[in-house]
């Protein structure tokens, strides 16, 4: 099955994403650029386009930052 998987991936049918952390900073900077240029909060699709990610990757990447901030702190203390 390893071969089938490699074939499917190399074919571009399934994209293995970059790391969460890398995407996290791409999202952060894309949002900052758009905030400046648009003068308002950018939408999910605008940020995805700017960061060259899918909206799905943006959602998961936002988690990379959130983890350190708010909630996790209190839960795991």
């Amino acid at each position, binding site marked *: 099955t390893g071969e089938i998987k490699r074939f499917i991936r190399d074919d571009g049918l399934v994209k293995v994403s970059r790391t969460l952390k890398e995407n996290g900073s791409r*999202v952060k900077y894309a*949002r900052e650029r758009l905030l400046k240029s648009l003068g308002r*909060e*950018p*939408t*999910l*699709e605008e*940020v995805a386009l700017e960061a060259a990610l899918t*909206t*799905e990757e*943006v*959602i*998961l990447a*936002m*988690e990379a930052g*959130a*983890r350190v901030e*708010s*909630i*996790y702190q*209190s*839960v*795991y*203390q």
Partner: protein
Amino acid sequence: MTKNEMQIQFTAVSENEAFARIAVAAFVTPLNPTLEEIADIKTAVSEAVTNAIIHGYDGMTGKEQNQVYIHCLLNRDVLQVEVIDEGKGIEDVEKAMEPMYTTKPDMDRSGMGFAFMEAFMDELEVISEPGQGTTVLMSKKLGTLPFIDREE
């Protein structure tokens, strides 16, 4: 589509808190919300789920049976989220909702959970009875109506 609905149910352990907030964020994705709206919703859901796990089921045995339920309803541009536990309930809901009020100061709780839910969502209602579990009802209007109208 102007109406969409989902429900999730999971074991009341802190490992599932991130799962819960990501699931709700993913559910609203087709509406193309702003990143800020997504962050708001995630914070509110996290606070409600954390409360269910650490307060609702506090000291209750049968860990694997303790369940948290989330019900999300999207009606056009309004998201409604219900977070439900079948835990010990709250004696004085009004007092519990006061900013800074916490029954677990020892655990470094800030007592700001309900205040956050109130700040980040448009509406918040807490229904609870000792021994009857707790239901937290929140709703938020997303600034995506032009998007919905374009789609229709």
